[in-house]
C-alpha cells in the first residue's frame, strides 16, 4: 500500500515536471518568435516550481507534520475529516475513506480563510498587516535561484529548470534570507502586546546571530567548487556530477564512482549550515521565539489567514531549506552513479524533456526525503534554552565555521582535485559514526555486568 503511494507520487512529480519542461520550452520559443522577448520560459518555471511544487509540498507538510509525528510517537494521527460529496456512487464511497487524513488540509484552509482577522486595539494597522507578508515572501523568493532539474533543449531552446541563475547565486540566498527577520520583528512590535514584542525580539536576535554562521558555513563549498552559482554549466549543481574517483572506464555501459557531492567534501559545513538554517526557520529545537503550545511568540495576536501566512511560511522554509541542501550538498538532481550512461541514452538525447523530468523527479524525491529528515529532527530533539541557542551560534558554530574555511582552503590549495578534501570529509563522518555506534565505556560495563549477573543465576 505504502509502495503504491510512492509510485503514484513519483509518477505525479514526473508528469508535472515533464509538462513544465515542455511548457517552458514552447513558451520560450513562442516568446522569441512572436514577442521577441526572452524569459517566458522562466515565468513558466516560476509558476510550476513555486506555485505548484513549493506550495503543494508546504501545504502537505502541514498534514505530514501531524501524521509523521504521530507515527513516530506510536499514534495514528488525524484521520477523522471526511469528504462528503452529494454524488450518487462516488460520494458515499469517499465518505468512508480517511484518505490518510488528507481532508484535514482542506478543513484547515477553510478554517483559516473564514476566521476573523482580528486586530488588537492600538496596534499599528499598516505594519500589523505588512508583517505576515514580509514573513511569507522571503522564503518563497529564496527558491528562485534553486535549479530543480538539468538544462535540456526543448523546442530548440535551452531550458534551465530555475526561475533565475544570477551570477551572485548564494549571495542572493543570504540577502533574501536575512529579510525574513523583518516580518517577525515587525509582527512582534506591531501587535501592541508585550509578550509578542518579547517573542519578536527573541526571534530577531536568534535569526541575526545565526546569519553569521549560516554565511560562513557555505564558504567551504564556495572554495571547493570555485563558484557561488547554483545553476548553470559551472554551478554547484553541475559540479557535483563529476567523479572524484572512477571505478569504471570512460565509455563503460554504466559508470560507477564516488561523486563530488557536497556532503562528502564538507560534512562539517553541512552540519553547520543545517543547524544554522534550522535556527533561521525557528522550528524545534530552535523554537524559543514561539513554541506552539507553550511559548507565547511574536504572532500571538494574529488570527485567520494572517496567522496562516506565518505558519505556511515556516513550512515553505522547510521545503526551501531542503531544496538548498539538495542543490549544494546532495548532488542536486544527479544520481550517485550512472549519470553519463543516462546522458548517452538515445531516447534521452532525442527527448530532452524526458531526461529533465526524470532528473527533476530525483531532485524532488531528495527534497521530500530531506523534509522528512527535518520533521524527524523537529520531533526528536529537545528544545534549547535561550542562552544555549546563543552559545551554540556564537561559541560553537562560528569558530568551527571559521576553522572549516581555513582547513578547506588549505586542502584545496594542496590538492585542487578535491580528493584530499573528500578524504577529510570521510574521516569526519567516520569519527561521528564511530562515536555514535561504539557504546560508551559506562554503558558497556553495565551491559557486561548485567550479562555476568544473568549467567551467575
Amino acid at each position, binding site marked *: 500500500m505504502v509502495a503504491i503511494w510512492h509510485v503514484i507520487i513519483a509518477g505525479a512529480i514526473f508528469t508535472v515536471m515533464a509538462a513544465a519542461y515542455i511548457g517552458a520550452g514552447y513558451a520560450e520559443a513562442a516568446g522569441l518568435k512572436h514577442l521577441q522577448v526572452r524569459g517566458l520560459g522562466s515565468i513558466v518555471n516560476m509558476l510550476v516550481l513555486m506555485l505548484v511544487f513549493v506550495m503543494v509540498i508546504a501545504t502537505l507538510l502541514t498534514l505530514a507534520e501531524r501524521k509523521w509525528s504521530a507515527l*513516530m510517537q506510536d499514534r495514528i494521527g488525524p484521520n477523522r475529516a471526511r469528504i462528503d460529496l452529494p454524488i450518487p456512487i462516488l460520494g458515499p464511497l469517499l465518505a468512508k475513506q480517511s484518505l490518510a487524513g488528507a481532508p484535514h488540509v482542506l478543513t484547515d484552509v477553510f478554517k483559516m480563510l473564514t476566521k476573523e482577522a482580528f486586530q488588537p486595539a492600538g496596534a499599528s494597522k499598516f505594519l500589523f498587516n505588512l508583517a505576515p507578508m514580509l514573513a511569507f515572501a522571503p522564503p518563497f523568493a529564496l527558491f528562485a535561484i534553486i535549479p530543480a532539474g538539468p538544462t535540456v533543449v526543448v523546442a530548440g531552446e535551452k531550458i534551465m529548470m530555475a526561475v533565475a541563475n544570477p551570477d551572485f547565486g548564494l549571495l542572493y540566498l543570504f540577502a533574501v534570507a536575512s529579510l525574513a527577520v523583518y516580518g517577525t520583528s515587525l509582527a512582534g512590535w506591531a501587535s501592541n502586546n508585550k509578550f509578542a514584542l518579547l517573542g519578536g525580539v527573541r526571534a530577531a536576535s536568534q535569526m541575526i546571530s545565526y546569519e553569521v554562521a549560516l554565511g560562513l558555513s557555505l564558504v567551504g563549498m564556495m572554495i571547493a567548487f570555485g563558484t557561488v552559482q547554483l545553476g548553470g554549466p559551472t554551478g554547484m549543481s553541475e559540479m557535483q556530477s563529476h567523479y572524484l574517483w572512477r571505478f569504471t572506464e570512460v565509455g563503460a555501459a554504466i559508470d560507477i564512482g564516488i561523486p563530488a557531492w557536497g556532503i562528502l567534501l564538507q560534512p562539517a559545513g553541512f552540519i553547520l549550515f543545517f543547524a544554522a538554517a534550522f535556527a533561521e526557520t525557528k522550528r524545534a529545537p530552535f523554537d524559543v521565539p514561539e513554541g506552539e503550545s507553550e511559548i507565547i511568540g511574536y504572532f500571538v495576536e494574529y488570527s485567520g489567514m494572517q496567522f496562516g501566512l506565518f505558519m505556511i511560511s515556516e513550512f515553505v522554509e522547510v521545503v526551501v531549506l531542503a531544496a538548498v541542501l539538495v542543490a549544494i550538498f546532495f548532488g542536486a538532481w544527479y544520481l550517485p552513479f550512472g549519470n553519463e550512461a543516462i546522458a548517452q541514452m538515445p531516447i534521452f538525447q532525442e527527448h530532452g524533456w524526458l531526461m529533465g523530468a526524470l532528473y527533476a523527479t530525483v531532485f524532488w524525491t531528495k527534497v521530500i526525503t530531506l523534509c522528512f529528515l527535518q520533521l524527524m529532527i523537529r520531533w526528536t530533539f529537545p528544545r534549547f534554552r535561550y542562552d544555549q541557542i546563543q552559545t551554540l551560534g556564537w561559541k560553537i558554530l562560528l569558530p568551527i565555521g571559521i*576553522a572549516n574555511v581555513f582547513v578547506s582552503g588549505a586542502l584545496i590549495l594542496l590538492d585542487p582535485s578535491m580528493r584530499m578534501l573528500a578524504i577529510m570529509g570521510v574521516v569526519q563522518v567516520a569519527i561521528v559514526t564511530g562515536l555514535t555506534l561504539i557504546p560508551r565505556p559506562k554503558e558497556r560495563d553495565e551491559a557486561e555486568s548485567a550479562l555476568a549477573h544473568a549467567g551467575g543465576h
Partner: protein
Amino acid sequence: MSGHDDGHGNNPTELQHNPGSAEKADLRERMYLPDLIKGLGITITHFMRNLFGERDPNPQVVNRTGMSLVSTVQYPEEKIPYPEGYRGLHRLVPREDGKPRCVACYMCATICPAQCIYIEAGEYPEDDAAVESRVIEKFPTAFVIDELRCIVCGLCVDACPKDAIRMDTYTHTPSEYNRQGFVYDIPKLLKGPSVTHPSDPWFKRGSSEEPDHVHKEAHTRIGEGHTAPRLVAGPRIEVDKSNPVAVTKFLK
C-alpha cells in the same frame, strides 16, 4: 582534523555540560552529535515500524512486540473492554414478570451521597393478579436517577436489600444533547436480564423446599445473568426525545 571535530573536542561548553553528573562529560557528550543521531535513529525506527506494520487493534496488548507499535484505539469503532466488576450505568433489575424488583424502601436514596435518586412509592392493590405483587406492599411509581449528579460510588447497589438496583451494564452513561436526557426514569432504567433469588418473598410463602444455604446473598450475584460480550458495549440506549420525562419536581 577538521575544524568541526577540533572545535567540539577542545571546547567544553555549557551546551554539553551535564550538571547532574559529577564526572566530566566525555567526548561524545560534548560533541552532542552522536547522541542526537541515536535519538533520530530511535524515532525513525518507530516511524518505519508504524508506517509499514499493520496496526494490531487489540487494546489488551500491554507490551507490543509486533511490527507496528501503534496502541491507539479508534474510539467509536473500537472500545476498550471494561474490567470485571466495573461500575457502569445503573439499571433497575426487573423481575421475571418485567416489573422492577424495587420495593421503594428509600434505602438507596438515603445512602446516596450525591442525592441523585428520587423515589415516589405506590402501593400494590391487595388483589393484584401477580403473586409477586400480592406479597410485597410497595413499589416505586417514580424512580429517577440524575446521571449527571451520580458520582458512581456504588453505595446504592450495596444498600439495596432486594438486589433491585445494579451497575452491571458495563456501559457508561451515553452522551445526550440536553441535561434533561440524563435524568433517567423507570422506562430508561428498567432493563437487562431479570433476576430471581430463591429468597424472594413470593417463594418463601407457604412451604419453601429450597434449603437456606443455597440462597446466595445479593452482593455475590452481581453480574450474574449478564451475557452480553464485554468487548462490545451494549446496545445504545434510545432516548424517547418526543416525550421528555416530567421530573421538574426532582430537578428543583
